[in-house]
């Protein structure tokens, strides 16, 4: 009965505001009131290191709560153009003040990360997509845990640790954290304090410098044995640069316990180059054509052509970006797989055109 009235009111409102959605007018009062798109207001910005900052956001209507370890796609307008990137949530789910935080490390020449760290202002409005990702603790909250993080890869783990701490769970965890130098290490102080409060939590930090990782710091079975002798008995979460992940995957694999290793990447390793072929990409629904050199993802090509395809992670994990292939072939840049059947669903964020293609986009 009540929902019926609500629905009718909504339909009535939609006719009054048509052809625009009701939101178009509601947002004049407060952009956070939208019920169709989720926006958030920046309420605080805290500097973590010279080039990293935590951003506190107050999401508006439509925000769903998250699980520690998940990420959200954040959309910002930079020089008039909308850009979206995924960022892990570092705050405890369902905080009493209703706010969430992300922590961003500016990467050299990074468009969005530099904007967020150096230009964003308190009061600005950003766009959010619902939380996503399965890099979460799941049912393992009270199992013995091991965390391995490098650089900004500490963010989802910080979210998990804060959540465990807030729930007063007695930690049985070891955390190995790498950063270029101590003053670049995001959250190092907070993690050290956490280790003081929780006798079951061990925090170990390694400064790798900016060049190649010094051999004595590289992740090896010997080093793991030294730092965390029972590592193979622990559920492990790892997030960081590709070489760190590759080393861990090899170690866990040879120990035959790959299923205990949970990993998250911030950057896809798009290395497939076999069969690269330039061609013309046709986006059928929008009637736009653009050339592709065969190495860059269709998502980027579409964005440069002025389209704004739906997407989330931009690295082949969330499947928000899938589009139907109409003709031609595309190359999966992660593994060199070719898709060429009409009606195939293509993840455009990690697929490049292979010769001429047309897509239902």
């Amino acid at each position, binding site marked *: 009965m009540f929902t019926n009235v609500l629905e009718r009111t909504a339909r009535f409102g939609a006719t009054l505001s*048509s*052809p*625009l959605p009701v939101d178009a*007018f509601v947002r*004049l009062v407060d952009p956070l009131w939208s019920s169709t798109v989720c926006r958030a207001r920046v309420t605080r910005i805290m500097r973590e290191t010279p080039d990293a900052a935590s951003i506190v956001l107050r999401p508006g209507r439509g925000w769903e709560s998250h699980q520690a370890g998940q990420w959200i796609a954040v959309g910002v*307008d930079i020089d008039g153009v909308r850009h979206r990137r995924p960022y892990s949530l570092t705050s405890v789910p369902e905080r009493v003040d209703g706010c969430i935080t992300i922590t961003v490390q500016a990467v050299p020449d990074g468009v969005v990360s530099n904007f967020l760290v150096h230009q964003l202002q308190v009061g600005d409005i950003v766009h959010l997509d619902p939380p996503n990702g399965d890099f979460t603790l799941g049912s393992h909250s009270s199992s013995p845990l091991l965390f391995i993080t490098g650089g900004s890869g500490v963010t989802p783990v910080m979210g998990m640790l804060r959540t465990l701490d807030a729930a007063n769970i007695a930690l049985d965890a070891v955390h190995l954290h790498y950063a270029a130098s101590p003053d670049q290490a995001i959250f190092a102080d907070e993690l050290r304090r956490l280790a003081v409060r929780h006798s079951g939590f061990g925090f170990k930090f390694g400064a790798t410098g900016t060049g190649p990782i010094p051999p004595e710091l590289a992740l090896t079975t010997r080093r793991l044995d030294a730092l965390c002798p029972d590592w193979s008995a622990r559920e492990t979460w790892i997030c960081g640069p590709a070489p760190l992940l590759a080393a861990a995957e090899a170690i866990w694999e040879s120990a035959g316990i790959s299923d205990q290793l949970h990993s998250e990447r911030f950057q896809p390793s798009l290395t497939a180059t076999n069969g690269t072929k330039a061609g013309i990409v046709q986006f059928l629904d929008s009637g736009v054509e653009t050339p592709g050199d065969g190495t860059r993802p269709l998502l980027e090509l579409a964005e440069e052509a002025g389209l*704004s395809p739906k997407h989330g992670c931009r690295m082949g994990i969330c499947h928000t970006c899938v589009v139907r292939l109409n003709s031609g072939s595309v190359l999966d840049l992660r593994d060199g797989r070719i898709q060429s059947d009409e009606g195939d669903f293509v993840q455009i964020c990690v697929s490049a055109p292979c010769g001429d293609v047309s897509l239902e986009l």
Partner: protein
Amino acid sequence: MTSTLSVERETDHTIVPITTLRTVHQHPSGLDADELEAFGKLMDDLRNEIISNRGKADADYIHRVIAVQRRLEVAGRLALFAGVFPPFWVAGAAMLSTAKILENMEIGHNVMHGQWDWMRDPEIHSSTWEWDNVCPSDQWKHSHNEIHHTWTNVIGRDRDVGYGILRIDERQPWSKVALGQPVYAAVLATLFQWGVALHDVEIEEVMKGRKTKVDAKAQLAAIAKKGGRQLLKDYVLFPAMAGPFFLPVLAGNLTANVVRNLWTFSIIFCGHFPDGVERFTEEDVVDESRGGWYARQVLGSANIEGSKVFHILSGNLSHQIEHHLFPDLPSNRYGELAPKVRAICEQYGIPYNSRSFSRQFGSVIRRIARRALPG
């Protein structure tokens, strides 16, 4: 050779078959292929310059226009609820008319051209915008963006030449039906949004068997659906919400829709049909180069001079020449392009038609009246 041909073109098109004279296609601008290429290159440079420096200021502009438009619409409708008091009625109708004009011209028309697609804001995007007009956006994008802008003023191709009911060129065949065209024009102007919507259905193509009845019916159904919603909103729901003051609200909404119709009709006709604007034959556009297409856009459109507010209310279609040259550049930049385009046109001897609203409008009226008669 060039000059003889262009003289021939200006005196009479019907007596000497143009195709027999033009062994090599002569472009209506009178420029040769090299000149057209150079002209086209300069136009491309202007375009690239805007593309390379469009940014936050432009985004701020369209966001501001949209915010003003929506506030005006809300304020106008609220004022009309108090419309039994004449000052409120006048203010309400004026605000709502302005809101509808802004929405159709500076926002809807231009967003649907993709002028703001580069912002990648899904809410201000050509693929999603639905305008406050009975003509459904997807139909408009086809008839206007694809047909009209590609075939600008090509008789027999550009269906916007006279909107299929007005005879505006002496090369269009005359019949007695044309005698009534001053009246048709007045009716078209008053009901312009319906004219535009029905125009897209291409009834004449269906009668000629070049378009299927099924397609036309689907289009009509879409118009009925959208039009029905528009009518419901403006003529039933909002008036009903005013209760006993039903009539003033209805009258205000009707006024706003008619004012918007008259205004859009005037701006569009002044941009396309005053004296000096040329129309073309299909032969004129055979194998047309990019430079040739650019030159034809200049010959086929006319600018209207006016104040800044006038330009905004016309959706910057007062810079019709620049709009036809660069239909997908942000409209707020046409004003700065205009003097540059004009200088280049002067350099190449391409007539650049720019006059006041009253002069352009007067000449359009005279043309509609004159072409009602044979010749």
